[in-house]
C-alpha cells in the first residue's frame, strides 16, 4: 500500500502539541456576549481588529479598489490574467512605500526587491528553502512564535537551534547567548546558516534596541551567516522607544548586505491575515531572483494586489491609518496592563505587538513546566480564557503567558478582566477590593486618565458568523 510521505505522516505540522488544547477548549465553547456568556474568551489569537471601521470608510469612498464594482470592473480582465510572479508594479510600489512610512521614512525600500509569498508563513518557508539545505540550521532567540517550528522546518528539513534569552535581563538577545547557541550547534555538528529574529518580538511585544541590533549584525557578519528579520509587527509599535529596523542598521554599520533579508506581511499591521499578503525583501540579488521564481507556489491573488495597491498608495489614508492604529493599540495596551497591575499581575514592559507577555511565575506551584501546564489548564477550564503558555514559545523559564488584547471589543475585554480579578481574589494574590477596581490608583502613566478614557467605542465583538477553526490559524 502506497504510504504517505514521511513529511505528511509525521508531526512536523505541529498540531499535535498540547498547545492546541486551549484552541480546542475555545472551539467547543466559544464566548459570545449574549449566546454564550460563560464561554472561553479567545486571547490566544494575535489579530489586530482595532481599525476595521477606518478601513471600511476608505473602501466605501474608493469603489474602484474592488474589481467588481462599476468603477473597478474595467480592470477586471487584465487583473484576472495577471499571474506574473514579479507582482504588479503598483502593488510593489505601494508596499515599498508603506514599509518606508512604517519606519518613519528613515529608509527607502526598492520595489524591485519586493517578492510576494503566501503570507509570512509562505515567506519564511520559501526563504528557508533558498538559504539552507536539509540538516542545516537557523538560530532563533527564545521565546519565539510556535509556527516557526512548522514554517521553517516541516518540509524543508532545516533545524532550529534556540538562542536562550532570560527574564533576568528582560529577554535581551545577548552576544553571549548568540555565541553559546552557535557553539552548541557546532558541537552537535550542525551547520548554522542563519539567525532569525522577530522584531518587534512575538511573544514579548518588545523591540530590539540599537545596540542589540548592531551586535546582532556584527555577529552574523563575523560568522558569515544570514540574518532574517521578521518585521511583521513593525507598525504595531505604539509607544516610545521608536522602532529600529534592520534596514536602518545596515546603513549605520559595516555589513555584507548579501546576508540581510526581511520578512513582512500585512496580517498584523493592517489586520488582513485572510488576504495572504506575504513579502520577502532581500538585499541579496541572487536571493531576490530565486525567491521570485519560487513565489510561484504562493503568489498573492491579483485581485488582492489590486486592492492593496489602491489602498496603500493613498498617502493620506496610510499616514492616518498608522497613527490611528498606534493610538488604539496604545489605549488598549495601557488599559489592559493597568487593570492587570491592579490585581497584582505584572507583565514584561512592552511597547509593540498585539499581546503582552504576562508574568504568572508567582502563581506556579513549582518552578516547573508541569506546573505551568497545570496553571494553564486552570486558566482555560476555570477562568475560561484561552491564553498561550510560555512553553509553547520555547521559553526557558516557566510561568510566562502570552495574552492577546487586540482581537476583541471593549466589553469582552472587561469580561476577561473581571474573570482574572475573580481568579486572583480566589487565589489570595495581592488584591485590591472590588470598589477600588474602577478608580485610578497609583498609575505609572505620565498623564491623568479615567478608566473611561481607555474605552474606544464601536469595536466589534470577536464573534464571527463564519466558522473558524482555531486549529488552523496560518499565523497566531
Amino acid at each position, binding site marked *: *500500500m*502506497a504510504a*504517505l*510521505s*514521511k*513529511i*505528511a505522516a509525521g508531526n512536523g*505540522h505541529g*498540531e499535535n502539541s498540547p498547545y492546541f488544547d486551549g484552541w480546542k477548549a475555545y472551539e467547543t465553547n466559544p464566548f459570545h456576549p449574549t449566546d454564550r456568556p460563560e464561554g472561553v474568551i479567545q486571547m490566544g489569537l494575535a*489579530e489586530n481588529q482595532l481599525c*476595521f471601521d477606518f*478601513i471600511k470608510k476608505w*473602501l466605501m469612498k474608493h469603489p474602484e479598489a*474592488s*474589481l467588481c*464594482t*462599476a468603477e473597478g*470592473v474595467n480592470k*477586471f*480582465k487584465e487583473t*484576472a490574467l*495577471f*499571474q506574473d*510572479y*514579479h507582482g504588479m508594479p503598483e502593488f510593489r510600489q505601494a508596499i515599498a512605500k508603506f514599509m518606508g512610512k512604517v519606519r518613519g521614512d528613515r529608509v527607502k525600500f526598492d520595489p524591485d526587491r519586493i517578492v510576494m509569498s*503566501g*503570507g509570512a508563513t*509562505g515567506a519564511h*518557508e520559501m526563504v528557508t528553502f*533558498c538559504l*539552507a539545505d536539509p540538516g*542545516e540550521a537557523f538560530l532563533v532567540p527564545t521565546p519565539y512564535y510556535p509556527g516557526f517550528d*512548522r514554517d521553517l522546518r516541516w518540509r524543508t528539513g532545516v533545524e532550529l537551534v534556540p538562542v536562550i534569552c532570560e527574564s533576568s535581563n528582560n529577554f535581551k538577545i545577548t552576544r553571549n547567548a548568540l555565541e553559546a547557541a552557535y557553539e552548541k550547534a557546532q558541537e552537535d555538528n550542525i551547520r548554522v546558516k542563519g539567525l532569525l529574529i522577530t522584531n518587534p518580538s512575538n511573544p514579548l511585544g518588545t523591540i530590539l534596541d540599537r545596540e542589540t541590533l548592531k551586535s546582532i549584525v556584527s555577529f552574523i557578519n563575523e560568522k558569515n*551567516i544570514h540574518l532574517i528579520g521578521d518585521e511583521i509587527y513593525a507598525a504595531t509599535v505604539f509607544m516610545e522607544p521608536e522602532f529600529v529596523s534592520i534596514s536602518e542598521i545596515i546603513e549605520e554599520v559595516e555589513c*555584507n548586505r*548579501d546576508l540581510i533579508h526581511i520578512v513582512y506581511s500585512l*496580517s498584523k499591521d493592517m*489586520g488582513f*491575515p*485572510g*488576504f*495572504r499578503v506575504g513579502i520577502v525583501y532581500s538585499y541579496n540579488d*541572487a*536571493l531576490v*531572483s*530565486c525567491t521570485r521564481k519560487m513565489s*510561484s*507556489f504562493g*503568489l*498573492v*491573488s*491579483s*485581485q*488582492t494586489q489590486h486592492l492593496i495597491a489602491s489602498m496603500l498608495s493613498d498617502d493620506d489614508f496610510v499616514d492616518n491609518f498608522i497613527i490611528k492604529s498606534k493610538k488604539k493599540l496604545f489605549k488598549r495596551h495601557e488599559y489592559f496592563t493597568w487593570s492587570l497591575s491592579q490585581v497584582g499581575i505584572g507583565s514584561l514592559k512592552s511597547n509593540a505587538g498585539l499581546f503582552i507577555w504576562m508574568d504568572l511565575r508567582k502563581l506556579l506551584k513549582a518552578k516547573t513546566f508541569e506546573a505551568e501546564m497545570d496553571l494553564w489548564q486552570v486558566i482555560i477550564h476555570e477562568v475560561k480564557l484561552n491564553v498561550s503558555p510560555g512553553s509553547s514559545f520555547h521559553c526557558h523559564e516557566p510561568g510566562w503567558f502570552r495574552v492577546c488584547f487586540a482581537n476583541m471589543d471593549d466589553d469582552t475585554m472587561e469580561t476577561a478582566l473581571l474573570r482574572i480579578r475573580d481568579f486572583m481574589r480566589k487565589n489570595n494574590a495581592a488584591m485590591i477590593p472590588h470598589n477600588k477596581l474602577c478608580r485610578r490608583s497609583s498609575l505609572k502613566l505620565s498623564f491623568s486618565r479615567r478608566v473611561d478614557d481607555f474605552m474606544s467605542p464601536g469595536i466589534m465583538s470577536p464573534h*464571527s458568523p*463564519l*466558522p*473558524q477553526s482555531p486549529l*488552523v490559524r*496560518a499565523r497566531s
Partner: protein
Amino acid sequence: MPLLSRKATCSFHGQDSSYFLGWQEYEKNPYDEVKNPKGIIQMGLAENQLSFDLLESWMAKNPGAAGFERDGQSIFRELALFQDYHGLPAFKKALVDFMAEIRGNKVTFDPNHIVLTAGATSANETLMFCLAEQGDAFLLPTPYYPGFDRDLKWRTGVEIVPIHCTSSNRFQITASALEVAYQQAQKVKLRVKGVLVTNPSNPLGTTMTRDELDLLINFIADKEIHLISDEIYSGTVFSSPAFVSIMEVLKDRNPKNTEVWDRVHVVYSLSKDLGLPGFRVGVIYSNDSIIVAAATKMSSFGLVSSQTQYLLSAMLSDKKFTKEYISKNHKRLQKRQSKLVSGLEKASIGCLKSNAGLFCWVDMRHLLSSNTFEAEMELWKRIVYDVKLNISPGSSCHCTEPGWFRVCFADMSEDTLKLAMQRLKSFVSSTTINNRSHQDLKNSRRKLRTEWVFGLSFLSLNDREPD
C-alpha cells in the same frame, strides 16, 4: 560568502529552458495591433481570454459580491480575518458543484475532500510533498506541461520518469509504455510512487479515452501506487468525445472504500476554465481523508485569498450563470480552435485532432531540415525571430519526436489569430519556393544560435510566469 541552498542554485526552476526563451523574445518585442504591428504574436500562453465579457456582466449584475457585502451588510472584517485553511465553506460547496457540472453531473464531489491551494502549481507540489520524497518518482506521459519539472521536482526532490507516447497512436498511453517507464525507474533505483496524467492533455488538447483511464486504474491497482489526474482543462472540452473524468471511471468500476479509491486524486484550478490565473485558485481533491488532512495543513503555505474565495463563491453559486458560462465558453473555444485549424491547413500544416484545451498540437515535422531536435530548435527560432510567433517547441514538453509545436489560440483576438496564420502561410510558402542555399541556411542558424546563447547569458529580470 555563504552559498545559498542547493535548491536555490540548481536549475530546477526550469527557467533556462527554451520554453522561456520564447517568452523573453516576446517581452522584448510584443505585438500590438496599433503600436507594434510587426511585433511577436504570443501563441505560447495557454490563457482563456474568450469569455471575460460573461464574467464582467455577471459582476455588473451582482455588485454586492464585489463590495464585500452580504445581504447589505459589510463583511469586510470577517473576510479580512478569515485565514482558516479549511477554506470558506460556501466556496468549497460552489466549487464541488461546478466541478460536477463540468462533468455532466456524472460524478459528485464532497466539499470536505477539497483542499484549496494557491493555484494548480501549488496543488501539484503539495501532492508531491504528501505522497513522495527524495528517491521517489512519478511517471508522466510525454509530452507534458513544462512547468511540471519545476512544480513536481524542485523543492520536493521527487523525480519524473517519462511514459513515452508517440504519434503512431495519437500519443495515447499504452500498457507497454507504462511498463517500460516503470522498469526504467526501477533500473535507476527510483521508487515509483504514482502516475500523474493531465486530462484533457496539455499540450495535446485531447481527452483521454475510457480505455486509457481503465488501463491506468489497472496499472496503479497492480503496482499499488497513486494516480493524480490533473483536470485543469476539464471545462474546455468543446467537442466530442465528451470529457470522462478519472472519478467517473473509478465510480463505474470500483465500489468506495477500496484501496484504489483512496489512491486516486484530482487536481483542478480556475485558471483555464474561467480564465482567472491571477486569482490563484487551485484545488486538490482526494478520496483519502488522511491525505486531505495532510494537504490541508500544508496549504498554509499558499492559501487562497479570502477576498477571492468570497467573490468566486458568489459567482459559482449562481447556477444560471455557470450553466450559461460553460456552454458559451465551449462554443467560443470550438469556433476559435477551428479557425486555427483551418488557418494551419491553408499553410499546409496539420495538427493532432483535438477536442479540448486552449491550444493545438501542431505537426511541423515536414518543415524540419532533418528529423532531429536540433532541426526542431532551428525551425522554432525561425518561427520566433522571423515569422514572429511565440509558439512552444515539443522538446520543451519532453516530446520524443521532433517537429511538434504547441500553438495557443485563446489568448488573442480573432484578428490577431488571422494575422498569425497569414504570417505562417507566407513563411511556409517562402520556405518551399525559395530554395535557399545550404550556406544561407547555415549562416542564419549561426546568427540565431548566437542570439540564443546571448539570451541565455543575460536573462532579463522580466522572467515571465509560465501558463
